[in-house]
């Protein structure tokens, strides 16, 4: 019924290799884009923006970034929180140093700075592999958080040690600080997410993505057939950190507004983004979206059901949330190690044949 190729003829290579080759899929994608850009900004309010949409958009960017590194290039990283912190502090320093420059430039520059830091901490990956690398990236996590906590230059010598996002605009519209309208912050993040997803999708199916996947599947074999491991790993770290840096900058400037580094970008954040990637599906852009949506929604749903409807104390709900997240991860890994993205693929296959499966 749905997802049928019948009658959908391709007459050019370009049409044949597009991201959504099935017509139904393509139209669905256009409809989603139209709703996201054309309808939601007009109906959005502060609660929806802050509780669901902004965290979803921002975590989706981070998850795409980490998925490139872990899912496509096979380099496990536990330093996501640290790299997000680099993005946030780079953005803060740029915002305060050049107040008149557009936020677009600041966020992109913050991503670039994070990419440089990411490459620096990615260098050991040439020698260290697997678990050893995962633990080595913890060095980045702890060192970076300590650095932003202890060196006053990074937080402009403020007495509290926090960083606060000053009011900045882009094209005359205020998008940071307490007076920013919800639709503006939402659109700003949405534009970045769309751009990141497009870039990631096209990188991962091009030459670069293929070299990453070759390194992931077996690095020595990849080296023998002529993949340069230095280039492949460093580009993966750079692109991944670029996205993570952007998400860190948005997380600080648009979502939280004020940040204490150990709290906002601690080791828990690294694990959260990693869980998004695993639950969503390693090596899938759609999976990054699905994982981010799932883990942003879950606490909100639990809070509504547990605390508001059943009237349980919030600490019990918080503990139950740990149990449920942990249990879900285990169940997912046992039932479907490839995550929500694989479930989606299976569902699509089923839908193609439905209602006549034979």
């Amino acid at each position, binding site marked *: 019924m749905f997802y049928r190729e019948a009658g959908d003829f391709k007459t050019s290579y370009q049409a044949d290799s597009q991201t959504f080759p099935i017509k139904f899929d393509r139209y669905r994608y256009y409809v989603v884009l139209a709703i996201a850009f054309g309808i939601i900004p007009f109906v959005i309010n502060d609660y929806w923006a802050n509780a669901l949409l902004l965290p979803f958009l921002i975590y989706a960017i981070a998850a795409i970034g980490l998925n490139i590194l872990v899912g496509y290039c096979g380099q*496990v990283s536990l330093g996501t929180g640290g790299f997000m912190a680099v993005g946030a502090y780079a953005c803060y320093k740029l915002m305060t140093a050049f107040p008149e420059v557009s936020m677009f430039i600041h966020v992109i520059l913050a991503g670039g700075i994070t990419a440089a830091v990411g490459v620096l901490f990615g260098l*050991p990956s040439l*020698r*260290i*592999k*697997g*678990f*050893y690398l*995962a*633990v*080595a990236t*913890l*060095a980045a996590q*702890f*060192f970076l*958080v*300590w650095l932003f*906590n*202890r*060196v006053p230059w990074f937080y402009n010598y403020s007495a509290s040690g926090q960083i606060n996002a000053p009011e900045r605009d882009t094209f005359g519209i205020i998008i940071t600080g307490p007076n920013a309208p919800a639709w503006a912050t939402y659109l700003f993040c949405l534009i970045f997410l769309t751009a990141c997803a497009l870039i990631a999708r096209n990188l991962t199916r091009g030459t670069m993505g293929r070299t990453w996947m070759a390194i992931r599947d*077996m690095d*020595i*074999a990849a080296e*023998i057939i002529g993949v340069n491991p230095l280039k492949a790993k460093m580009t993966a770290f750079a692109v991944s950190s670029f996205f993570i840096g952007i998400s860190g900058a948005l997380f600080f400037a648009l979502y939280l507004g004020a940040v204490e580094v150990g709290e906002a970008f601690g*080791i828990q954040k690294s*694990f959260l983004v*990693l*869980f998004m990637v*695993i639950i969503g599906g390693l090596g899938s852009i759609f999976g990054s979206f699905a994982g981010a949506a799932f883990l942003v929604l879950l606490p909100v749903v639990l809070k509504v059901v547990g605390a508001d409807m*059943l009237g*349980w*104390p919030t*600490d*019990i709900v918080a*503990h*139950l*949330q*740990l*149990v*449920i*997240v*942990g*249990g*879900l*991860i*285990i169940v997912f*890994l*046992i039932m479907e*190690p490839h995550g929500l993205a694989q479930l989606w693929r299976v569902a699509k296959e089923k839908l193609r044949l439905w209602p006549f499966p034979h």
Partner: protein
Amino acid sequence: MSDQLIFAIEVILNGLMAGVLYALVALGFVLIYKASGIFNYAQGVMALFAAMTLVGIMNGQVPFAHLINAIFGGHITHFGWNIPALLAIILTMGVMVLLAWAVQQFVMRHLVGQEPIILFMATIGLAYFLEGVADLMWGSEIKTLDVGLPQGLNVWIDDTTYGIFGYGFFIDNLDIVATVIAALLVAALVAFSQYTKQGRAMRAVADDHQAALSVGISLNFIWVLVWSVAGFVALVAGIMWGTKSGVQFSLSLIALKALPVLMLGGFTSIPGAIVGGLIIGVGEKLFEFAIGPMVGGATENWFAYVLALIFLVFRPQGLFGEKIIERV
């Protein structure tokens, strides 16, 4: 002797003691990794879980009291009895064995043959799950744990060193006890794996799963055994850390501290875990003592990781790890 040097010696001694405690946690990792190739991130939470269960049993707390009260109303908190420490430790060990069985039965059995990274992720999930269960069972407030271990300044060392250097070293009794217990534990583990049937089977499984299966060793049983032994090590570590700094969430973070210890020592080596722990313990205390004040302090947060990172660049398999051989 100059004051600085004497201070440095004291710092090194304290570092050695802290290192022993790191090594205790790292030991649990090595045991499971050797036997099943699983990198068990949940080891730290297991220590927390064990310590909380021990406190709960000793004080006669009702498990899941908060949850029961929330669902059915009522105000149950305690059974109203206290259990002596030794009996409580034995009961807790029973709980840890049960936990080991449950982990094997419901999680690891279904994941045999998956990639190591998937297994690693599963143990992270397990860590979250256990942490939530522990909080639900016993409540998340900070608890004090007292099983009768001596604590506080060791007066004899203080007096003796005062007599020699004119300056009394501050060394905690608990650290000395921990060192002795750690040494006993390692000796017991070595004896167990060398001289008992189950211990030999454990080593066989560690060497080669398929060969062990083919001579009739039950992998299921061995894995439950290994997780139980790791649970025992977690219990010992939990008692030590819990007595030292209270039973609270930060206890589970010592797992993260044990990671650089493992990297230094190599994932597969029990002596490596001990030596790595001592190096990290002394290194971070000395660094904090010598360089810390210049860069703003609190370097203990990251020093261990950076040291391990730099070390690994030169020797990727750690000090005592098996040489990594890669084939296509």
